[in-house]
Every structure is written in C-alpha cells, then in structure tokens.
C-alpha cells in the first residue's frame, strides 16, 4: 500500500469486494494505475472486468475506502464531478439523437455551458475525425466513426482519465487498429490515464503498459504484457491467451 501511495497512482484500489444480486463478482481486488499509464484489464467474460470498471466512475457504487482517485476516496467525491474527470467509453455506442456536434456538446451542455464550433473541431481532431463530421446526423455513422464520436464526446468534459470497456470489440480489425492508434496518441498528447478492458490478449500487448488478469473476480496475474504473454512463461495470462483458462471457468 505504501508503495502505491509513494508512486502517486492516479487510481489506487484497495481490497475491493463487490456483490451484485447476491453474487460475489469482485473479491479483494487491490491494484493501481499510475498517472499517464495505460493499464489493460484482461480476463474471460464474466470475470468481473466491467464491474471493476463501473466502480471507478461509480456507475456501480463501490464500498467506501476501496477506490482512491489521486489519493481521495471516490465515494466522498461529488459523483457528477468524478464522472466529468473520469470519462467512459462503452463497448456498444449509444449516440443521442441529433448531430455529431450535439453529441459532443452534451456533457458541457448538461451544466448549461455551450461549446464553440472551434472547440467541436478540436475535439473531433483529437478523435481523428474530420471537421465536416460535426453537422452529420449521429445515426448515419459507421461503427468506427460512432466510437470515435463517443470518444470525442467523453473528452469534451476534459477528463484526466478514461475507462474503456472493450471499445473496439464491435469494430473490424482495421477500425480497431485505428482506434487503438488514436488512443495511444491521446495518452501522449493529453497525458490521459487509461484503464482498458479487453478480452483480447493481443490488443493488451499492443496498447497496455501493464496488464491485470481477472479470473472469477480476483486478480490472478499482473505484469507487463510482453512478459505475461510469452509463450514459454508460466503465467496464467499466457494460459488465458492460449485459450486454456476458459475450461477452468466452467
């Protein structure tokens, strides 16, 4: 614990357990994400990855004194402010009716702030989208474009961290690589801290500085992806990547 606090983690999670509908979905999770770091959360479906992510912006309420954002217990923070500081992108994209610009202006608009068209263009550019897209109907986009608009929409509240819940799993390989490149670039340019849920070990290898493997709601493995995924390693993560962990689940 003292280690983590000395390292000034962006997020520190200490001994987090969570039950949903009477079932224990997270058990004694302790982990951390450093500022500007991309941490991959790997694991089979139902292992608790999304549940953990949802606790971090309190879409699911975590117990007090388990999750700390820059040293502060998040259950003591104003939840709306927390969510503006910690953006989230979901696997399935829900764009609101209206134009792309309407969608991007949604977050600031909730507090009565207007977003200038220059700012819309800046946010579109951050998500590697052309400025012409601003006026387009939000329902007329490709999957990759929609996910980028969702990303730009999240960035509009100037978050310092992003929670990504399998953001590319509905995209084709080319769109996946492009979105990955955009996110890596954002980490560089904005210094974003990113917690990235994925079920794809190769994606974790491509994007993550560090990886946690979740199995049955527990952290089963931790380290740098190259190390964990080496074929000859004894790590559970390598077993997961080889498809040999699924069998133990059932």
């Amino acid at each position: 614990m003292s280690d983590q606090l000395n390292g000034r983690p962006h997020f520190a999670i200490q001994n987090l357990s969570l039950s949903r509908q009477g079932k224990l979905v997270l058990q004694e999770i302790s982990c951390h994400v450093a500022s500007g770091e991309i941490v991959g959360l790997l694991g089979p479906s139902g292992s608790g990855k999304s549940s953990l992510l949802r606790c971090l912006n309190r879409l699911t309420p975590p117990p007090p004194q388990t999750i700390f954002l820059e040293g502060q217990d998040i259950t003591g923070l104003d939840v709306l402010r927390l969510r503006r500081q910690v953006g989230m992108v979901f696997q399935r994209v829900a764009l609101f009716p209206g134009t792309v610009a309407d969608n991007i202006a949604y977050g600031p608009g909730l507090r009565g702030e207007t977003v200038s068209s220059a700012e819309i263009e800046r946010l579109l550019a951050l998500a590697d989208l052309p400025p012409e897209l601003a006026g387009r109907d939000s329902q007329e986009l490709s999957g990759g474009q929609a996910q980028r608009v969702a990303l730009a929409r999240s960035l509009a509240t100037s978050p310092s961290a992003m929670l990504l819940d399998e953001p590319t799993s509905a995209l084709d390989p080319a769109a996946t690589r492009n979105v990955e490149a955009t996110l890596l670039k954002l980490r560089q340019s904005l210094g974003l801290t990113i917690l990235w849920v994925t079920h794809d070990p190769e994606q974790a290898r491509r994007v993550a500085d560090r990886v946690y493997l979740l199995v049955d709601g527990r952290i089963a493995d931790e380290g740098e992806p190259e190390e964990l995924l080496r074929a000859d390693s004894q790590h559970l993560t390598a077993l997961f990547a080889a498809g040999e962990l699924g069998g133990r689940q059932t």
Partner: protein
Amino acid sequence: MIDLTLLDQLPRVLMSLVLVLLAALISRWQQVDLEKQMLVAVARAFVQLTLIGYALNIIFAADNPLTILLILSVMTAIASYTSGQRGKGTPQAWRVAGLSITFGAALTLGLLVGLGVFDFTAQQIIPIAGMVIGNSMNVCSLVMRRMREEVNGRRLEIETALALGATGRQAARPYLKMALQSGMMPIVDSTKTVGLIQLPGAMTGMILAGASPMEAVQLQMIVMYMLIGAAALTGLAAAWLSYRQFLTPDHQLVEF
C-alpha cells in the same frame, strides 16, 4: 331492508337478458367456450350493481361529508392496488401508484369543488370521483409500464448519459417525457373526437334519463376537461415517482 320497489325497472332488465342468451348461443355454436364465464359475468354484474345502487341510495340520503371521504378513500385504495399490480416490476409499485392516484384525483376533485363546478354532495362527488379515480388509475398504469419498459430498453443510453456527468433526472428526461405522453394520449385523443365517433357514457346516460341534449353536452365538456387535468396530474406524479425508483440519489441506474 332491501326495498324491492326500488327495482321497478326489473322487467326491462330481464328483457335485455335476451341479448346475453343470444351471445351464449353464438358462443356454444361457434365453440368459443365462453358461456359459463358469461353467466358468471352477468350474475356478478347484477349483484354488484344492485348492491352499489342500494348503497348509493343510502349514501345520497345521508349525505355526510365524512362518509363521502371514506368512500373516496376506499375507491382510491382499490384503484391504487389495481394499478400497483399492473406496475409490478417497478420497485415499490403500489406506493408509486397510491401516491400518484391520490395526488391526481385529490387535486382534480379539490379544484372542481373549490371552483364551484360541483358541490360537495354525495350525489355529485361520488359519480364524478368514480370517473376521475378510474381514469387516473388507467393513466398511472400506462405511465408506470412505459417508464419501466423505457428504462429497461434504454439502459445503455441512460448509463452513457450518466457517465458523461448527467444527473439521474437529466438522463431519464427523454423517457419521462415518453411515459407521460403515453399516459395522456388516450384521453387527449378521445377528447378530440368526442361527439364525432361516439357519445360518451355520461352524456348517453343523461339523455336516456330525460335530460336535454344541451344539459348533457355541457356536463360532458366538464367531464372531458376534468379527465384531461386528472390524467396530466396523475401521469406527472407517476412518471416522476417511478423514475426515482430506477435512479438512485447518487445518479446510478438501479438493477432490477
């Protein structure tokens, strides 16, 4: 105690049973298998309506404000229970229904009496309250059901809005609006077409009972306008109270 002279129209009622007999024959002939249920329904209608007729006779004669309030409470309780049953799936459905119907009906009836549209006498208030409470019950059921369906079908949209910093109320607003619309639409539509497609029950009844058409029409206007008001008030309360069952004060979507 039962004064049979009050059933002086009994021969006419019995003659109208010919139509039920006809329906039963059709049901048997076409093997619809509804004869038994029809018999039960006819018998229940006879007993229930006869009893309520005698009860109203006594109540109208007594005309005691406390008795009126007691009856209104019983009517509201039954309506709340029925609507609460329909609203199952919404946490605390009966409570949402009870509060919404009470709010909508009490405010509507209070205004009608306060503005001098009706007197607070048993003969005026009880039939009017029956219409208002019955209508509020339907509106409440519709709104609760629609709210539940929307919240269920739009979890992703709602959580996306919440994740962007929306309050529960901001995230639920589009669905609140739809739920309210679905509750109010039937009464608004029937008010639009009233007199063009069918003559409403209250008006038909008055004309049959010998009132002049203009008398009947004016009462019908009051009835339609009050039902719109009651629908809006009840619907608003039901939409408001049920959205709060789905979104916590910490702006989280409840799992249900």
